[in-house]
C-alpha cells in the first residue's frame, strides 16, 4: 500500500483542519482523494458538517430586564462624567 494514502482512521482526525482550510496542499489532495473513494468518510464528513450547523443553533443565556436597566444606568453615569 502506498504510505501516502489516507485511511479512514486518519481521515476523521483531519476533518476540522480540512474545513478550516488549514491542510497543506499535499494533505488536502490526499484528503480529497480519500473522500472521493470512500462512502463511509463522505458520510462522516456530512455528519461533522451537520454537527457544526446544529451547534450553531445552541441557545445562549437570557438577560433579565433589571440587568439592562442597571447597564443603562451605568451608561448614563459614564456619559455624564465624560
Amino acid at each position, binding site marked *: 500500500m502506498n504510505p501516502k494514502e489516507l485511511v479512514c482512521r486518519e481521515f476523521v482526525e483531519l*476533518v476540522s483542519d480540512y474545513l478550516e482550510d488549514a491542510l497543506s496542499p499535499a494533505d488536502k489532495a490526499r484528503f480529497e482523494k480519500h473522500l472521493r473513494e470512500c462512502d463511509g468518510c463522505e458520510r462522516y464528513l456530512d455528519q461533522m458538517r451537520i454537527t457544526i450547523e*446544529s*451547534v450553531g443553533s*445552541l441557545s445562549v443565556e437570557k*438577560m433579565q430586564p433589571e440587568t439592562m436597566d442597571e*447597564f*443603562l444606568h451605568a451608561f*448614563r453615569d*459614564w456619559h455624564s462624567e465624560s
Partner: protein
Amino acid sequence: MQDQRLVESLQAGDEQAFRGLVQKNYGSMLRLALTVIGNRSVAEDVVQETWLGVLRGLSGFEGRSSLKTWIYRILMNRARSAVTGESRRKALFSEQDAVFPETEPSVPAGQFTAEGKWIQSPSNWASSPESQLLSKETQEVLAQAASALPAAQRAVLQLHDVEGFRSEEICDILALSSANQRVLLHRARSKVRKALAKHEEGVK
C-alpha cells in the same frame, strides 16, 4: 468603518446604540464567563464589570481588532482575574487542557479494522428529516454534550461555531496558539458528533 461609528455613537451618549450592543452580546458573554468561572453570580459580576471596563476604555479602542473581539478580550481578562485562590485550582478552565489538549481519538478505535478502515460505515444523516435534528430532544443531547466538554474546548466551540468568530480572533481572545485552537475545536466537534451519533443509534 462600522465599529468606529458605533464607538462614536456611544461616546455621544446614544442609549439605543448601547442597548443594542449589550443585547447582542450579553448572553454569549455570560456563557463564556460561566465556562471559565463556573459560578453564575461571579460570572454575572464579571460581565457587568466588563461593560463598565468597555465604557471606561472606549477612548483607547483603536480598531486594530473588531470591537467585539476587543470586548471579549476584556471579558477574558476579567474572568481570569476573578478566578483566584482556591477557586483557581477548581477552575473549569484547565490551562493544562488549553496547552496540551487530550489526545483521545475522534472516533473510538473499535470502529475501525486493524488497517484503519470503517468496520461499519457511518449512517447517513443528510437524509434524516431536518425536523429531527432541530427537535427538542436532539437540542438537549447537543446542549448536554457541549456542557460536558472540558472548558477550553467548550470555549473554543462556542466562540467558533456558535458566535462565528474567526480562528485568529479566538486565539487572540483566549490566548491560544492557532494549532491548539484547531485541536480544541476538533476535539469538541468530534465529541458532540459522537453524542449525536449515539443518540441517533438509540432512536433507531
